[in-house]
C-alpha cells in the first residue's frame, strides 16, 4: 500500500501532520478574525495544496467552502504559473474564476524551499462580512448583476516578494464597509498562512521532500480507491431527478429548474446537469465548482461517510453542465447565493441517489443557507455593525431516525448558524426576544423530518436595514418514500403588534426597520421519510407531549388521535388512518414522449395538466403546486394547469418525468397538493 520507502507510521504521521497544520490554521482564523461570520460561524476554510494545485489536506472545513477551493487555486496558478516567487501572495474572490461568491475572499500563500522549488502551500478562504456592493453585507436577494454584489477580485498578487501592494489594498478597502475590520480579516488569513508555512518547513526538514511527496501521493490514491470501491458496488445506470430554485422576476415567481442525470458506470460517477435552466439575472446562479461541491457532499455523505476528503476523493466523480446555466455561471450574472445552488445540487443528488440506495438517503434537507443581515450604526459602541445569522432548519428523516432539528445541513459542515444571544446583545443594539423550535415544521413521515426554528430579533436603535436571501420560502423541502414536505422558510416583521410578510418570500433587500420592530425568522423543516401513517403512534404521542407536533397535525396527518389526557385513542386512530389512506388520490400515467411540460419566463417549471374534476378532488386550482409520487422514492413537483379537455384520473408524463419517478405508461401515481405561501405577484 505505502510507496517504497514509506513505512505505515511515517505515512500516517505525515498525512495526519498535514491535517494538523490545517487545524492550527483554523484555530488561528477563528480566534483572530473580525468578521463575525468567520469567528462565530466558522464560515471559512483552510487547506494545503501541492505545487500542482491538488488539495492534499483539509480538516473540519466548511464543505461548501473547501470543496470549490481547488478550482480557485487552479485559476490562480493558471494566471501566475511561471511567475510566482517567494514572498508572493495571491488574493481572489471572482466567482467566474474559481471563487464562490464575492464575500468569500481567498488567499493563496505559495511556499518555496531554499533552492526556490515550490513546496506544499496553504490557502484560506474566508467569508468577509462586507465586500461593498449595494447593501450592507454585500449580497442581496434582488441583485440582477454581479456589480451590485461588491468588489470583484480576479487573482491578483496582493503581496509581491514580501511587499504588500498598497495601491491594490487601498482600492479594495475603499470599496468595503468597515474597512479596518476587513484588514483585520485579511491579517488573520495571513497569520494562519504564516503559521502553516513554518509547520510545512518543519515537516519537510524532518522527513525530506521525497518522503513528504510519497506520502501525499499514497494518501490521495488510497482516498480515491476507497470511494471508487463504494461506487463500484452500486448498480450501473442512469438516475434522474429535478428540483427548483426560487427566482423572482419583477415580483413574479419564476422557478428555475435544476436537472440532474447521475450515471453510475463501474467505479465512477458522472453528474450531468443537461437541461438545467440558463443563468438568470437573479441570485440563483453559481459556478460548476460550487454545484460540484453539492454533488460531492451528497455522494460522500451517503456512500462513504468517514473517508478522507482530499483531491483523491474528487477523482471518481465527473461533472458536466451547460455553460452560462445556473449550475455554471458566466459574466455578468450575479452569483451571491452560491450556497443555494450548492444546496439544490445536494437535493437533486439525494433525489437521484434515493433511487440507488434508498436505505442510505434522507428526506430533503431544509435546503437554504438563510443568511439574515441587519446593519446600522451602533451608538453605544460608536461604530457600524452588521448582524448576521443563518438560523438552521431541520434535516430530513432517514431510515433509522427522525431528522435532527435546527442543525446545519451536511454541506455546511461544523458551522454553527447562530450566535449566542449574549454575544449579540453585548455587541449590537439588538434584543433577541425568542428562539425556539417551530412546531409542526418537520416533514411528516415514518421518520419525521427535523424541525426548523423561530428566532425573533428586536431593534433597539432608531433605524436599521434588514436583508435576507433565502430559498425554499415557497417550494418546500420534499419528503421521500411517501414522507411529506417540511414547512418552508418564512420571514416577517412585527411592528406595533402587527405582523407583515414580504411580497417576494425569502428575498428582502435593505428593508428599513425602526426601533422596536421585531424581525421574525422561521427556518424550514426537513422532509419526512416514509409514510406518516406508518409512524409508530407512540412516537407521535411523544412528539405531541414534547410540543413538536400539534394535536391537530397528529390526527390529520398521522392519523393518531389523542384523548384529553394525551393518550392514544386506539380505535379512533385506526379509523383515522384507514380514512386518510382511502382518501389518497391515484391517477394513471399516460406516456407522452413529445410533451414539453416546462413553462416560465426566464425560468422553467414543470406543469401538470388536470381536468377540473381532478383539481376539485385535490382541492387545487390553476398555478397551485402539487407533487406526483411514483415508484421511485422522491416525488416530482409540478404546477397545476386546469384543462377542461383533459381525461380524468390521468397524468401526462414526458420521458424525463417517467424516468425520475420510475413509472411507465399505465402505472399508477399518487397526487397530492403542496401548500405554498401566497406570492402577490403570481407566477411568471
Amino acid at each position: 500500500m505505502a510507496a517504497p520507502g514509506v513505512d505505515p507510521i511515517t505515512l500516517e504521521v505525515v498525512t495526519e501532520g498535514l491535517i494538523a497544520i490545517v487545524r492550527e490554521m483554523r484555530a488561528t482564523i477563528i480566534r483572530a478574525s473580525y468578521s463575525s461570520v468567520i469567528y462565530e460561524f466558522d464560515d471559512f476554510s483552510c487547506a494545503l495544496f501541492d505545487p500542482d494545485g491538488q488539495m492534499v489536506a483539509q480538516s473540519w472545513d466548511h464543505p461548501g467552502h473547501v470543496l470549490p477551493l481547488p478550482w480557485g487555486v487552479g485559476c490562480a496558478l493558471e494566471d501566475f504559473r511561471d511567475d510566482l516567487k517567494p514572498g508572493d501572495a495571491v488574493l481572489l474572490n471572482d466567482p467566474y474564476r474559481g471563487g464562490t461568491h464575492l464575500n468569500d475572499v481567498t488567499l493563496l500563500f505559495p511556499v518555496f524551499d531554499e533552492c526556490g522549488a515550490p513546496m506544499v502551500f496553504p490557502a484560506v478562504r474566508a467569508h468577509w462580512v462586507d465586500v461593498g456592493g449595494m447593501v450592507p453585507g454585500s449580497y442581496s436577494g434582488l441583485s440582477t448583476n454581479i456589480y451590485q454584489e461588491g468588489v470583484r477580485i480576479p487573482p491578483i498578487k496582493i503581496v509581491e516578494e514580501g511587499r504588500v501592494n498598497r495601491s491594490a489594498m487601498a482600492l479594495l478597502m475603499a470599496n468595503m464597509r468597515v474597512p479596518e475590520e476587513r484588514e483585520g480579516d485579511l491579517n488573520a488569513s495571513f497569520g494562519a498562512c504564516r503559521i502553516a508555512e513554518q509547520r510545512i518547513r518543519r515537516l519537510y526538514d524532518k522527513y525530506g521532500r521525497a518522503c513528504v511527496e510519497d506520502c501525499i501521493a499514497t494518501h490521495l490514491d488510497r482516498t480515491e480507491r476507497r470511494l471508487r470501491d463504494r461506487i463500484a458496488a452500486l448498480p450501473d445506470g442512469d438516475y434522474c431527478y429535478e428540483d427548483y430554485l426560487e427566482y423572482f422576476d419583477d415580483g413574479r415567481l419564476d422557478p428555475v429548474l435544476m436537472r440532474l442525470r447521475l450515471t453510475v458506470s463501474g467505479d465512477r460517477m458522472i453528474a450531468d446537469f443537461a437541461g438545467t435552466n440558463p443563468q438568470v439575472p437573479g441570485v440563483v446562479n453559481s459556478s460548476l465548482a460550487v454545484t460540484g461541491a453539492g454533488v460531492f457532499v451528497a455522494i460522500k455523505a451517503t456512500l462513504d461517510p468517514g473517508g478522507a476528503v482530499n483531491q483523491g476523493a474528487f477523482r471518481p466523480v465527473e461533472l458536466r453542465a451547460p455553460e452560462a446555466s445556473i449550475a455554471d455561471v458566466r459574466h455578468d450574472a450575479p452569483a451571491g447565493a452560491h450556497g443555494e445552488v450548492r444546496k439544490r445540487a445536494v437535493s437533486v443528488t439525494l433525489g437521484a441517489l434515493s433511487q440507488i440506495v434508498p436505505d442510505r438517503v434522507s428526506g430533503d434537507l431544509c435546503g437554504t443557507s438563510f443568511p439574515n443581515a441587519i446593519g446600522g450604526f451602533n451608538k453605544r459602541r460608536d461604530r457600524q455593525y452588521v448582524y448576521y445569522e443563518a438560523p438552521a432548519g431541520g434535516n430530513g428523516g432517514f431510515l433509522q431516525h427522525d431528522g435532527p432539528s435546527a442543525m446545519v445541513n451536511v454541506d455546511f459542515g461544523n458551522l454553527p448558524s447562530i450566535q449566542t444571544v449574549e454575544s449579540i446583545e453585548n455587541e449590537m443594539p439588538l434584543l433577541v426576544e425568542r428562539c425556539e423550535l417551530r412546531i409542526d415544521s418537520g416533514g411528516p413521515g415514518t421518520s419525521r423530518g427535523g424541525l426548523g426554528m423561530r428566532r425573533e430579533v428586536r431593534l433597539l436603535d432608531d433605524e436599521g436595514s434588514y436583508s435576507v436571501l433565502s430559498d425554499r420560502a415557497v417550494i418546500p423541502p420534499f419528503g421521500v418514500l411517501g414522507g411529506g414536505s417540511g414547512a418552508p422558510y418564512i420571514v416577517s416583521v412585527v411592528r406595533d403588534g402587527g405582523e407583515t410578510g414580504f411580497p417576494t418570500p425569502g428575498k428582502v433587500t435593505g428593508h428599513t426597520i425602526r426601533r422596536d420592530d421585531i424581525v421574525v425568522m422561521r427556518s424550514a423543516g426537513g422532509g419526512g421519510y416514509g409514510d406518516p401513517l406508518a409512524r409508530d403512534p407512540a412516537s407521535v404521542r411523544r412528539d405531541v407531549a414534547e410540543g413538536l407536533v400539534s394535536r391537530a397535525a397528529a390526527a390529520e396527518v398521522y392519523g393518531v388521535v389523542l384523548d384529553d389526557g394525551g393518550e392514544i385513542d386506539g380505535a379512533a386512530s385506526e379509523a383515522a388512518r384507514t380514512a386518510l389512506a382511502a382518501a389518497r388520490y391515484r391517477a394513471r400515467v399516460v406516456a407522452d414522449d413529445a410533451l414539453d411540460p416546462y413553462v416560465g419566463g426566464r425560468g422553467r417549471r414543470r406543469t401538470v395538466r388536470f381536468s377540473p374534476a381532478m383539481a376539485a378532488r385535490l382541492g387545487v386550482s390553476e398555478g397551485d403546486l402539487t407533487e406526483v409520487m411514483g415508484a421511485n422514492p422522491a416525488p416530482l413537483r409540478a404546477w397545476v394547469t386546469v384543462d377542461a379537455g383533459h381525461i380524468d384520473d390521468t397524468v401526462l408524463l414526458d420521458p424525463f418525468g417517467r424516468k425520475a419517478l420510475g413509472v411507465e405508461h399505465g402505472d399508477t401515481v399518487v397526487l397530492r397538493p403542496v401548500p405554498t405561501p401566497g406570492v402577490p405577484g403570481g407566477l411568471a
Partner: protein
Amino acid sequence: MQDPGPAFRVGVDVGGTFTDAVAYDDETRSVRYAKVPSTPGDPAEAVVAALEALDIEGSDIDRFVHGITIGTNAILEGRGAEVWMLVTRGFRDVLDIARTNRATLYDITTLKPLPIVPRSRTAEIDERIMFDGSVLAPLDEDRVRAAIDSLSLGPDAAVVVCLLHSYAFPGHERRVAALVREAHPEVFVCTSSDVLPQFREYERFNTAALNAYIGPLMNRYLSDLEHRLQGRGYGRNVFIMTSNGGVSTAGRARRLPIATVLSGPAGGVAAALHLGSRTGIRNLITCDMGGTSTDVCLISDLHVPVTGEQTIGSYANRTPQIEINTVGAGGGSIAWLDAGDILAVGPRSAGAAPGPACYGKGGTDATVTDANLVLNRLKSGSRLAGHIALDRDRAVAAMAPLMDRLGLEVDALAEGIVRIAVARMVSAIKQISIAKGFDPRDFVLCSYGGAGPMHAASIAEEMDISRVVLPRGPGNFAALGSLISDIRQDHALTKTLQPARTGYAEIDGVFRSMEEEGRAQLQAEGVAPEHIAVRRSLGMRYLGQSWELDVDIPDEVQSAEAVDAAFHAVHDRRFGHRSAGATEIVTFRIAVIGRVAPLALPALPGGGDLAAAVVERRRVYFDGAFRDTPVYDRGRIPPEAAIEGPAVVEEAGATTVLPPAWRGYANGHGDLILERR
C-alpha cells in the same frame, strides 16, 4: 513537646474496576499501597475497605484526598438525575438548539445529542436582564412560584435555573433558586451563574445542566463517604481531585460536582508531571489504563494542557479541565463480534462485577484480562487485590464462542483481542499527538493504571515510540497524584472593559475583589493564609473580535499599557500578527491555590543480584508462539540492572510485559524504564 498530629496523607482513587489507595507518612517518608475491588453499587464501601487494607485509623490521617469517576460515568452512561430547567421566557430550547453545528462531517445520518433537559421538563420564567446587568423586565415572583408548582419533581430530581445575562446580574437566578428551595428543600438546585459566571448562554446553561444532572448523585455519595470516614475517626476535610488538576473540598464539590468530572484521570496526570520533573523527562504521553477505560494526556515540556472548551460525552462543559482523551477500552473490556464477524473490544466492560471470566465471579464474556491470562502474560492462579484468584480454565472457556465463530485457536484469538485493545489506545493517543501536530516519537510513554504496564510496550511499538516509563506503584499512581496536588479553585467573571479607557486601577480592583473572595473561601476551608497563592489571567481580544485569548497577568504587570503589551505579545505568538487597534478585556480569571507540601520519596537502596529477582520461568505467548520467559519480582530488581525481553515483571496490582524486542531497567526511584533495542 507538642504532639506532631496525624502523620498520614491518604489518597484513594475509585476506578470502574478497582479502588486504589496510597498512604504517605510525612514523618517516616514511607509509602503504603492498597488495592481492593470497587463496589459500584456503593462506592464508599470500597473506600473504607481500602483504608482497612492500608491498616490506618482515621485519627492517624492528616489529609484525605479522593479521586472519583461516578459523576463522569453517570454522564457517559446517561444515568444522571431527572433535571428540570427554569429558563427565561422564549428560550426553552437553548439546550436542544445548541449551536446548530454537526458532530460529524460528510454523514447524512449525523444526530444531535439529546438535550440533558428535554423540552417537556422546562418551564419559562417571566423576566429579562440586559447585557449590562440592568433589568429590562423584573422577576414576576408569583408566576415563578406558579412555574415551580407546575414541575412534577420526583425524589431524585434536580433543578437548574438558567436566565439570560445572569453572569452580569445573578440576582434573578439566585432569587428563583431560593424560591425553589423554599418549595422543595430536599432538591438539588443550582444556577448557571454560580456554576460558570461567563457569557454565551448555550455553553453556560449546558454546563449548569450537567452540574444539576450529577448533583444529587454526588451529594448522596459524598455525604455517605463523610459519614463513614467520621465513623472511622477522620473528622477533617475530605478533599476531592478536580478536573483542573487541583483539589477542592468536598463541600465545594457538592455545589460544583461538574468541576470533578475528570477527578480520576487528573490525579494520574499530576503524578506524571511530578515524575517528569523528578526524572528530567519533559515530554510525556500518559496512558492510564484501568479496568474499564483508558485516559491519555500529552505533556509537552512539562506543561499540562488545561482547556475550558472540552466536551464530556457529546455535551459542552466549560469548566476548566486538563485536556484528556478517554477511550472505552481497559482490562475488563469485553471482546465481541461486530456485524460481519469483525472482532471488536469494548466499550462494554465487565467492570468489577462480575469482572472478567477468569475472576470466577460469574462473568462469562471474554475480556482483555482473560486474553492476557490465556497468553500467560498474567499468571494463572495468582491473586489480584488480595482475594481474586485468576482461573485460566475459565478464561479459555469464555473464548470458546468466539473461537467457533471465527475459526481461530484460543492463542491466536487471545492475541487478536489484545492487539485490538492496543489499537484503540493507539488511536486515542494519535488524537492528542499526531492530530495536534506533535510527533509521538518525540515523547516518552508513561503508562500506569492496573492494566497499563502490561500493554505499554505494545502501544509504544505501534506508535514507534522508543521509550516507556512505568512508575513505581503503577496501579496506585493516580491515588499518589492526588496527594501532591495543590488545592486549586478557578474563578472567572465576564466583565467587558477597555484597559486604555478605564485604566489599571479598575482592572486591579476587579481582581482584588475576586481575590478577596477566593482567599476567604480557601481560608474557610482550612487553608492557612500563608499557603495561599493567586494567579491572575485575562480573557482579552481586539475590539471587534469575538473570541478572547487567555493572557497571564504576572505580578510585575502594574499598568494598563503593560496589560495591553502582554496581550499583543500573546496574540502575536499565537496568531502570527498583532494590531494597533484598541483592546478589550472580556473575562477576568483567577486561580486561587492552596499549596501542599511536596512528597519526599526515598531513593531505593542499590546493589543486589538480578538473578535473585527471578521468581519463575513460564511459557508466554509472543508473536505466534509460546516462549520460555523469565518472570521477575519488581520489588527485588536492583537499580540499573538490564532486563532483556521477552520478560514479565510482576508486582502487587500490576504486571509488566517486555516483548522480545525490548529491554528495561529500574532507576533509583524504582521506576521501570523500557527501551526498544
